[in-house]
Each structure stands twice: as structure tokens, then as C-alpha cells.
């Protein structure tokens, strides 16, 4: 087991190195630099600017410098926001995205499991179809349509919430709903499949024969087994919610890391692009590692493949 974890961690580190290197050189290959501006500055001022940020050194030297400071945990200064370091920006924005993601996931799970369970219990009836169709809305209508529609309805016409922002607790509701909705459909599908399998097993029949109410059978006996497929989906879901939050963050002006990433790519804020990419890669790799370890622990055969 220890060997498995060590080898996986080493592989992840190698992958991380590839990601950093690829991103570093990719972003430099993109035309336009951090100081390209509409009102052109003189070549002398541009040279001063580049010297100020060490961009006048050869690229390989900058790359080594970057790796060096990265090893010390320093992601460098932001070009766009000179009085913030990338570390600070991430420390500032990540908790917001994490909170949004956690709420969205909670909503997705609640909705998905409810829909999936209903669909399984009432298999091939109109309830099943309605639940499937409802779940499908989430993966068939883009969030940038659902988002503004909900704002229009709940914020402007009904006046329940603020139109946007991240100031009071109520501001969390709409963005979390919209972001979570997209993940409810796969969860409901997995729940339905898992539940159907469990509901056909003997112990459920026994329980039924004993006269246990259907509601109790589902909540007390079937749900635990039926949710196993959902657990393995949590890894990809969390990764997707994390990297997919930028659209929601833009629509609702939420100060999260996703929006920061997209803006940094447009601003050519080299260090911030790298910092956010590294952050995402580390998060996703860590998630995969945890999922792998859990799976290996549950199923010893996987270990042989590692």
C-alpha cells in the first residue's frame, strides 16, 4: 500500500512538472505581453518595465528562476496587480471558490440523489421520465442562460436576492444552484442505476416480505448500497465544479479563483496564469490520488496495476 501511494505521488509530481513547463512556455508563445497597452509606451519605458520584472533575461533563465522560487513556495508577483503576490491572490480567492463549489456540490448531491431515487423506485413511469428530463436540463442548458434567467426571476422580479455579488449569505444561493444543477444529472443517473441494482437484491425482498414500508426500505436499506457509484463520481465532479466555476463567477461577479484565471490569461499576467494552473493541477491530482487510494483500499486487485 505504501509503495502504491509513493509511486502514485511521484507520478503526480512528474505530471505537475510537465504541466508547469508546458504552461510556462505556452503562455510566452502567446502574442501580446503583460505591458501591451492601447496607448503605446516608448521602447525605453518598455525596456524599463521588462527589466523591472526580469523579463529581459533569456527565457531559460526566467524558467529556472521561476522553478527556483516555486521550490520555495513563492509564486511571484502579479503583473497586473503589482501590489499583490500570486500567493496572496490565491489565498484570497480560493476560499471563495471552495465555498461556492462545496455549496454547489451539496446542492447537486441533494437534487441528484432525490431525483435518482425517485426514478429508480418508480422505474419506467412518468415519475422516472420527469426526473430524468428535469436532470437533463442541467446538462442541456448552458449555465450562462440559466444564471441570468434565475437572476431575472428571483432577484429582479421577486426581489428575493441581490442581483450579484458575494457580500451577504443570501448571495450564495443563486450561484450555487446554477453551478450545482449541471452535476445533478449524472448523479441522478448513477443513483438510479445503483438503486435499481440494490432494489433487486434478496435482502430488500426479505425486508419487503416482512412488511417494512417502501419509504423505510429506500432510506434505511437501499440508499447506502445504491450510492456507491456516486462516491466514485465525486472526484471528477469536484474537479469539474472547480474548473467550471469561472462562468458563474463572471455572471455573478464572485471574487473567486476561476474568474481570476480567465482574466489573467487575457491580461497575460504570466505569474498569475501559472499560479492558478498549478493550483488547479495540484487540486485535481490530489483528488485523483485520494480516489485511487480509496479504490485500491476497497479493491486489492487495483494495486497490482499500480
Amino acid at each position: 500500500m505504501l509503495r502504491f501511494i509513493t509511486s502514485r505521488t511521484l507520478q503526480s509530481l512528474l505530471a505537475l512538472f510537465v504541466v508547469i513547463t508546458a504552461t510556462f512556455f505556452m503562455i510566452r508563445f502567446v502574442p501580446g505581453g503583460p505591458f501591451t497597452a492601447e496607448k503605446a509606451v516608448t521602447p525605453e519605458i518598455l525596456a524599463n518595465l521588462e527589466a523591472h520584472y526580469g523579463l529581459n533575461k533569456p527565457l531559460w533563465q526566467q524558467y529556472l528562476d521561476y522553478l527556483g522560487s516555486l521550490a520555495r513556495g513563492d509564486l511571484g508577483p502579479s503583473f497586473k496587480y503589482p501590489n499583490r503576490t500570486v500567493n496572496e491572490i490565491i489565498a484570497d480567492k480560493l476560499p471563495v471558490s471552495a465555498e461556492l463549489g462545496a455549496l454547489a456540490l451539496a446542492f447537486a448531491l441533494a437534487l441528484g440523489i432525490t431525483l435518482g431515487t425517485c426514478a429508480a423506485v418508480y422505474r419506467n413511469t412518468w415519475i422516472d421520465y420527469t426526473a430524468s428530463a428535469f436532470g437533463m436540463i442541467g446538462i442541456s442548458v448552458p449555465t450562462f442562460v440559466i444564471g441570468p434567467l434565475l437572476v431575472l426571476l428571483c432577484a429582479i422580479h421577486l426581489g428575493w436576492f441581490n442581483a450579484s455579488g458575494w457580500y451577504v449569505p443570501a448571495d450564495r444561493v443563486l450561484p450555487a444552484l446554477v453551478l450545482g444543477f449541471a452535476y445533478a444529472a449524472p448523479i441522478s443517473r448513477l443513483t438510479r442505476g445503483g438503486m435499481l441494482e440494490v432494489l433487486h437484491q434478496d435482502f430488500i425482498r426479505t425486508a419487503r416480505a416482512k412488511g417494512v414500508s417502501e419509504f423505510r426500505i429506500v432510506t434505511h436499506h437501499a440508499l447506502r448500497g445504491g450510492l456507491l457509484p456516486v462516491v466514485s463520481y465525486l472526484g471528477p465532479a469536484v474537479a469539474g465544479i472547480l474548473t467550471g466555476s469561472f462562468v458563474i463567477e463572471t455572471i455573478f461577479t464572485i471574487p473567486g479563483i476561476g474568474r481570476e484565471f480567465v482574466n489573467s490569461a487575457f491580461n497575460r499576467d504570466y505569474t498569475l496564469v501559472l499560479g492558478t494552473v498549478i493550483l488547479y493541477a495540484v487540486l485535481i491530482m490530489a483528488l485523483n490520488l485520494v480516489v485511487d487510494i480509496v479504490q485500491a483500499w476497497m479493491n486489492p486487485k487495483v494495486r497490482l496495476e499500480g
Partner: protein
Amino acid sequence: MIWRVGNGTEPQDLDPQTVSGVPEHKLIMALFEGLVAENPRDLSPEPGVAERWEVSADGLVYTFHLRADALWSDGTPITASTFLRSYQRMLTPALAAEYSYLLHCVRGARDYNEGRLTDFSQVGFRAVDDRTLQITLQARTPYFLKLLASHYSWYPVPIHVIEKFHGLARKGTAWTRAGNLVGNGAFVLKEWRQQQILTVARNPHYWDRACVRLDEIHFYPVENQDTEERMFRTGQLDITYELPLAKIDVYRRENPAALRTEPYLGVYFYRFNLKRPPLSDRRVRRALALAVDRESLVQNVTRGGQAPAYSVSYPGTAGYSPRARLSGTVEDARRLLAEAGFPAGRGFPRLELLYNTSQNHRIIAEAIQQMWRRHLGIDISLRNEEWKVYLDSQDAMNFDLQRGGWIADYLDPHVFLEIWASSNLNNDTGFAHPDYDRLLAQALAAPDDATRYERYQQLDALLVEELPVLPLFYYTNVRAVSPRVRGYHHTLLDNHPPKYVWLE
């Protein structure tokens, strides 16, 4: 009394010497003040840190007399040497201030900024005594006071604080954070939560504090126009940064009191690449320019009250209106195109029009593309590039036609004409006309504004004749402003000194 303002993107920083950008400008106007301030109605220079000033007869030496009660928000007095050291910092090569070229009109400033001169005492700034500052210019700069009043690169910075944070030659030290930042404007920084809110409160040490009526201003960075408009509608904002195109008609109909469409000192144009045939042919450029129906464009496409542009200079800039006017009919355009060898557009190469990725630029380009197809029988393809890539292409002149725009930094006709000089970095058309460069130099040397403006008339005539650019329309600012907001007057530069604003 709290004024809640939609302020576009998150500000980069609050250091007046290292930022560039409109959202930053609006914040700095609240936090700092220059030697000369702007009148809230017509932006004419009025006393700021300097209570009065004199100009020498040759227009080269400006002497400013600072007021005795000019203080930083921590109570430290502002003296002539504060300005001296501020300008020294601005020009320090290692600080790499993007706007340092705006100080280059001062004698020796450019040399110091570019490292050819290391002794700052040789630069044209002099502290005669604690309360007298003398600035000597390189050459006559008729618009110098306007520049001083309108551009924050001329504002003083709290050297005594910056020193503590080792920021004299470094950008982005912590001196601009809430709690550290010291300013001399009507307001002081109270709170700054990135991408959330930036709060400023009344400055108790401000010399004209009796005039200030607002207690606080809350600036909200909201990038998305639609989001911002919804925030205005739900009462989260008193004023928006801009207004989405589609909302203009709705406001006209349903909420006219809140809609403000105001002329803005800027021109929207298409650059021609004069180095590429057939655009090197003046007749072709003229044909393309004449075949655009500007009236239809502003009425049906841009729809924000813009005025069609038939010249490059903005009419009515500080008393100057160009007499030269692009005129001719669509028939003239067809004839010119035929003369250039493309009767009815036959044989005309497929040129490309470059614009930066944006819905508004796209629909304008699509409309003009159609006009050229209909009137001239030529097909132009559209190419959009993401902002930085587009700027890169502009700089490298990697385009046939390019959407461009020019917004004035200060209120003087010079701003629209200087960029077409052959040596100007923003020219980017390949337009190099010896007469043009000569006339521009003559204009600056002119003894009075009447003579100077006469030279500008000749320059504008030359531009309409040669057409290195195709002027389309003059900008407007369109935004929603709550009727409660008072003291917020229309100005051509869209500068609104916040110390005069109040709410009813």
C-alpha cells in the same frame, strides 16, 4: 451619505505613478489632488494644491505657489520638495512608470527617464522655497496646465510613506493598501477588498473639506455590463460604469431620468495600412470612406447618441472645431474605385478588417462590411483578435484595416492630431507626411491659441485629404445614473471630481 459606484474592472493598484486605466483614474481622483484641479463643469484649471500660478512670457517657465494648509491625510505638510521628489520617482527608470512620457515635456525629463541623465537637479523642476515650485519646459506646451489638471501622473505621492515601504524605485509595495495609503484628495482609503468593494471616506485633513458633502464612496468592480445594469435596477448601485447597448432603448422608454448619454472626447475610426496596396492608393481609401453611411450607423447600430464623424478632430474641443469635412456621395465612391482600377469592385482583393473581440465592435464591423458590399461591390472579411493579440497586430501593422479609437487624456485638440505624426508610436498606419509633421511643430510653437488652431485646421484638412484613417463616429458615454445623484455634471473627458458630488 454613501455614493455607490459601479467602477468597471478591479483596479490594478492605487499608486498614481504606476497605474493606467479608467477605473484607476476614478479612484485616484477621489484619493489624490494635483497642483491644479479641474472645474467640475468645464474642467478648466482651478486651484488645487497650488493656490495660484504664473507663466513666463515665453511660455516655458511655470511657477506654482502652494497653499499653506496643503496636508497629507496623516497630517504631514505638502511642500515643493514633495513635488520634486514625486516627479523624480515618476521619472526613475527602475520604477518603469508607463505614463512617465507625459512628463517628457519638462526640460531634461526624458533624458533622466531614459537613463542618459543621472543628476536630477538638471531636470527642469526646482523648489524655490517650501511653498514655491518652478517647472521649466523643454518647449512651449500650450496645453500644459490642462495636462496637469487632468492627468494623475502629475499628482504628488506621499514620499515619506513610500520610503517606509521601500517603494521609491519599486512598483507594488504595500504602501497603497488600506491602512497604509496616505493621500491628499478629498477622500481617504478605508477598505479595499479585491474584486468586491473599495471604500473611501472623507479626508479630515483636506484643505477644502467644507466643500465635501459625501461621507463615503463605495466603488464596486463589476466587469460584466449586464450584471452591473441589474445591480443598478435592484438598487445596489447609484451609478453604472456603462450601459449595455440593448438597454438604451428600454431606459429611454421606461426610465429616462436615469439615462445619461453624453458626448465623450474620443473618436472611433478604422486605420488603413498605407503600406499595403490597394490601400496605398488614396482614391481607394476615399472610396471606402465615402461608402459608409455614418448616419445609419449611429442611428441603427451604435444607438448610443454618438455623432457621425466626418473629420478626425472632435468638434468643439476647447473651442476648436475642424472646418474640413469628408464629403461626397456613394456615386463619387464608385467613381473613385473605378478610377483606381476596380470598376464595380471587380478585381478588388479580399481585404481583412481587424477588430478586438467584442460584441459591439463586431456588429459595427458587420454593418460596414455590408455597406461596402452593397455600395462598392467589394467583400471585406472580418478578423477579430483577443485584446492583447490585437494590440500586438496593431503595433506590427499586421492588418489591412483595423478598428481603432482614441480617447483624449486632456482637453485640447492637440490630442487627436499628434498621433498622426510620422514619429508617433500610435500612428500605426504608415502615414508619414512631411507637411503634417512640420505643421504640427508649428502649431506647438504658435504664440497664441488662435494661430495654433489655424495650424490645426490645416492638419485636419490634410487628414481628410489623405485619409490615413477612416473616421466613423465620436464616442458617447452611456450610463445609468440615479436621479438622486447631484453635482455630477457632464464633462467631455468624463472626469467628475467626486468632491462636488452629493446625493439628494
